[in-house]
């Protein structure tokens, strides 16, 4: 939204005839209209969702409008309480408990590995980097069952360990790849100067590389936050006690238990479930756009 300065007049255009000018204006008008209409169609479901979460159950399937005729907080009040012994507050707290260690582990492990790949020569480097790309493309579906058996044998089922631990071992190859791309674009002068001054490689990493890499690390943390927030299959497989459910599982549970009649409860909790991701995205959108443009991305 701050990008209004994008070159609107990039090339000094030699004098246009009035006909050309009219054509250019028309085509700009068509483009803006198209973008606005498509954008509205895309975003209206989300806007409608917010409005509908304040509607009464009878109104949800009765109007396409956004503004509730008879606004109510019932959906939020009842939805928050859930049909379990826990409130949604508990599920948000659980989500946070999953996200925080995972994000920290990811940032640390991926920074170490990316530093290794981007700044050192060692035997087998090429093949190891190829393995990183291969992991990026490897469908998780093929490793999931043995991973489950492994975590079961370790006695980790129904704990957060299966969700946390792989991230401490650079489990998301995508982030390593992204950081390597960032590091390759940063000149090595400062690091070389530090080395000449006697810093060892770890000190160089901590005091020179990490500060320069901070924007990229923020991107990594944000993506990991979003993906973990949205992750459903992981918790579904590993967690069985309702008391440790994150928001995604709790929402599915509330559909299964209340759907037939209490629509606004579900919609209200869906709004709350989307809210953290939306807030984080709008506060830090430039990191997302930069992250994706630099590393390519899934999603």
């Amino acid at each position: 939204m701050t990008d209004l300065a994008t070159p609107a007049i990039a090339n000094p255009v030699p004098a246009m005839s009035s006909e050309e000018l009219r054509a250019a204006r028309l085509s700009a008008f068509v483009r803006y209209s198209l973008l606005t209409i498509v954008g509205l169609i895309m975003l209206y479901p989300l806007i409608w969702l917010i409005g509908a979460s304040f509607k009464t159950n009878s109104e949800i399937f009765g109007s396409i409008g956004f503004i509730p005729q008879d606004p109510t907080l019932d959906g939020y009040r009842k939805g928050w309480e859930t049909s379990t012994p826990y409130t949604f507050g508990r599920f948000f707290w659980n989500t946070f408990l999953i996200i925080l260690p995972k994000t920290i582990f990811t940032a640390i492990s991926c920074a170490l590995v990316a530093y290794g790949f981007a700044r050192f020569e060692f035997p087998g480097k090429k093949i190891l980097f190829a393995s990183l790309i291969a992991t990026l493309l490897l469908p998780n579906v093929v490793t999931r069952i043995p991973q489950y058996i492994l975590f079961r044998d370790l006695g980790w089922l129904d704990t957060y360990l299966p969700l946390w631990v792989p991230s401490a071992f650079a489990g998301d190859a995508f982030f390593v790849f992204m950081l390597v791309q960032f590091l390759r674009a940063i000149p090595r002068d400062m690091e070389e100067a530090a080395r000449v001054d006697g810093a060892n490689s770890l000190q160089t990493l901590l005091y020179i590389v990490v500060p320069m890499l901070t924007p990229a690390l923020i991107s990594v943390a944000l993506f990991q936050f979003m993906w973990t927030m949205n992750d459903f299959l992981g918790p579904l497989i590993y967690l069985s006690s309702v008391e440790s459910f994150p928001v995604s599982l709790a929402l599915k549970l509330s559909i299964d238990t209340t759907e037939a009649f209490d629509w606004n409860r579900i919609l209200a909790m869906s709004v709350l479930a989307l809210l953290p991701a939306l807030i984080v995205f709008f506060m830090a959108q430039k990191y997302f756009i930069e992250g994706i443009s630099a590393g390519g991305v899934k999603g």
Partner: protein
Amino acid sequence: MESRFLGLAYLAPYLIGLLIFTAIPFLGSLYLSFTDYNLIQSPVWTGLDNFRELMNDRTFMKSLRVTLLYVFLTVPLKLAFALFIAVILNYRLRAIGFFRTAYYVPSILGGSIAVAVLWRYIFADAGLVNMVLAGLGLEPINWFGDPVNALFTLSLLRTWQFGSAMVIFLAALQAVDKSLYEAAAIDGASKWHSFVHITLPLITPVIFFNLIMQMVQAFQEFNGPYVITGGGPLKSTYLLPLYIYDEAFKNFNMGYASAIAWVLFLIIMALTVVAFWSSKKWVYYAGDKRS
């Protein structure tokens, strides 16, 4: 002088993770696919039995068919949309940042259960979409009740999340040297000609990248069908990841589930290899013959 193995020390977390969480499970599931394993007794080697059974498993065949249909429907639709919008945004528009953000929002939220819930509501019989259709004087559509529509509705959910592919396209489009267009314009090329003969060839590496990534993901779609349709009606949205999940974590047929997972993996691999092989013919790498 530091040891030439110092770099490897920094890679240690990755190497351990690669071994424990990727390589061993990868081979493990290959092994399990030749066994009968219910998590209680030890795995029993059954040779090719699982794969033979798959050939006669009508649920599997149906699931395989709808999965392929889903992928071949979703990926082109999503990429075409992403490229189309990126091209429009790439005209020196004001407010490009605003539109880019707006289009990107669904990608950020798209994978979440809340959005799947929303999809259920807006495509319900009396939902938002049908109300709009009624307002336009059109017949309501039974989005989830009809097998063909149901798959298409799920495909729309993915297509709706074209933002991340779009941002990648946009970055590539902005990197195209503007002087090429000017030269083409002087030679009398139309905008369409410039697009086909200059823009498209120059961004083929990015098209290729997006194609592979989107395909690998589409084959693994789970949340949408699980939450929205539960695989129905008549198993018309019962994608392979759902079948694998049910076999593995509901019926505890770990061997059979692994066999399905490997078939899925081999299909993805085969298509990726075909894409890489064919890319020599259509992907243009500026000045670098090695890549």
